């Protein structure tokens, strides 16, 4: 156990054993997949139509926003070129699907169906459409375990979007709550502030939404304010996730 805790020696054997357990995981995932298929097959025409309309409307809105963003991105690049700083804006992204497997009920871990064969690596950031979900924890050949940002052992460097103040967001073991324990009492942070990844530490690319501050309480007896935040991604309901490859790792001159 000490060997596993303190060294990297057992990473490879664990990957092999995980490969041997691959059929178990696939079989365990089977009922969820079958019920999912059945549900999609049995959906009525009217509900499909409704969904189609909804998606069309949203598509229109998004593409309108996208036009603006492209212009902004171009402008941003131009300004950065003027400042002589090189920031990779494009991140390579790949979609992975959740394997419904019960891991340890007290740890916030999920399994996804991409592994080292697909180029997934440990500490790779994992997002969904609404924000950061977590990072890759362990990789085997065909699947990988993702640790959620709500795991008590996880911390993520964030930044308040409004003021640019940097902080660390710790998981609490509760899916809907992160804690920011080291915010000074007089810091400018309010309810409703959006926390985005700061890109410090090199793990996560900068600028992805993480959580929204939902309570700030100042206790004069304590040296730090009590700040909690709610993750923007719905950590208990996602089915597909995005794995991100960033090239910002090398020569990141912010």
């Amino acid at each position, binding site marked *: *156990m000490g*060997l*596993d*805790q303190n060294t990297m020696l*057992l990473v490879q054997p*664990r990957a092999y*054993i*995980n490969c*041997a*357990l691959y059929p*178990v*995981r696939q*079989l*365990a*995932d089977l*009922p*969820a997949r079958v019920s999912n298929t059945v549900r999609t097959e049995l959906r009525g025409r009217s509900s499909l139509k409704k969904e189609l309309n909804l998606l069309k409307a949203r598509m229109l809105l998004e593409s309108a926003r996208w036009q603006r963003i492209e212009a902004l991105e171009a402008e941003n690049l131009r300004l950065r070129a003027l400042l002589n700083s090189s920031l990779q804006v494009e991140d390579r992204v790949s979609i992975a699907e959740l394997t*419904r*497997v*019960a*891991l*340890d*009920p*007290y*740890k916030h*871990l999920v399994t996804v169906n991409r592994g080292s064969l697909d180029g997934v690596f440990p500490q790779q950031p994992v997002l969904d459409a609404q924000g950061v979900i977590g990072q890759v*924890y*362990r990789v085997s050949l065909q699947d990988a*375990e993702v640790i959620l940002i709500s795991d*008590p*052992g996880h911390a993520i460097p964030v930044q308040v979007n409004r003021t640019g103040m940097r902080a660390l967001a710790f998981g609490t*073991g509760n899916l809907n709550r992160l804690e920011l324990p080291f915010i000074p009492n007089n810091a400018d942070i309010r309810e409703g502030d959006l926390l985005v990844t700061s890109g410090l530490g090199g793990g996560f690319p900068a600028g992805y939404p993480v959580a929204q501050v939902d309570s700030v309480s100042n206790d004069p007896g304590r040296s730090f304010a009590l700040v909690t935040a709610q993750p923007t991604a719905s950590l*208990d309901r996602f089915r597909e996730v995005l794995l991100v490859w960033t090239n910002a790792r090398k020569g990141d001159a912010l």
Partner: protein
Amino acid sequence: MNGIKFHGGWVIFLSLFCAFWLQALPLPAGLDLFRPQWPLLVLFYWTLALPHRPVLLYAWLTGIFQDALQSSIFGLHALSYVLIGFLILRLYQRLRFLSLLYQSGVVFVCVLFHLFILLWSYRLNDYSVNSLMYWLAALTSSIAWPMVYLLLRTVKNRVNVV
């Protein structure tokens, strides 16, 4: 013990495979706590039924595999399974004569012990396991025991596992 021929080892393998499958089967969030410790139950049966086999080795291997499956630290389940396996190995002659109900009681205590070792690891890693519901698995395991016992005994006698 070289005089005894082993037979039907694949049944043990298959039963453990099924136990792993049941352990990994996703359940709705609330029901997760009611999940019996399937691999432990299956190991318990085989230790009781075939103590002349190298059951402690089986226990250790099962533990290692379960550590990989549940992504816990390597050796945690293995440690607990080997300890429990050793206990049963010392007591199997007495345990065999107990009725199913009393055996369930012993299973209850063993699973409590197992959960206790897991809890120790949780607390060391700052996971908050702060409800009594945590111990429910011991109760459900002891309820599931007669079922596992009867099923595995039927299979064992049918296939003649030695």
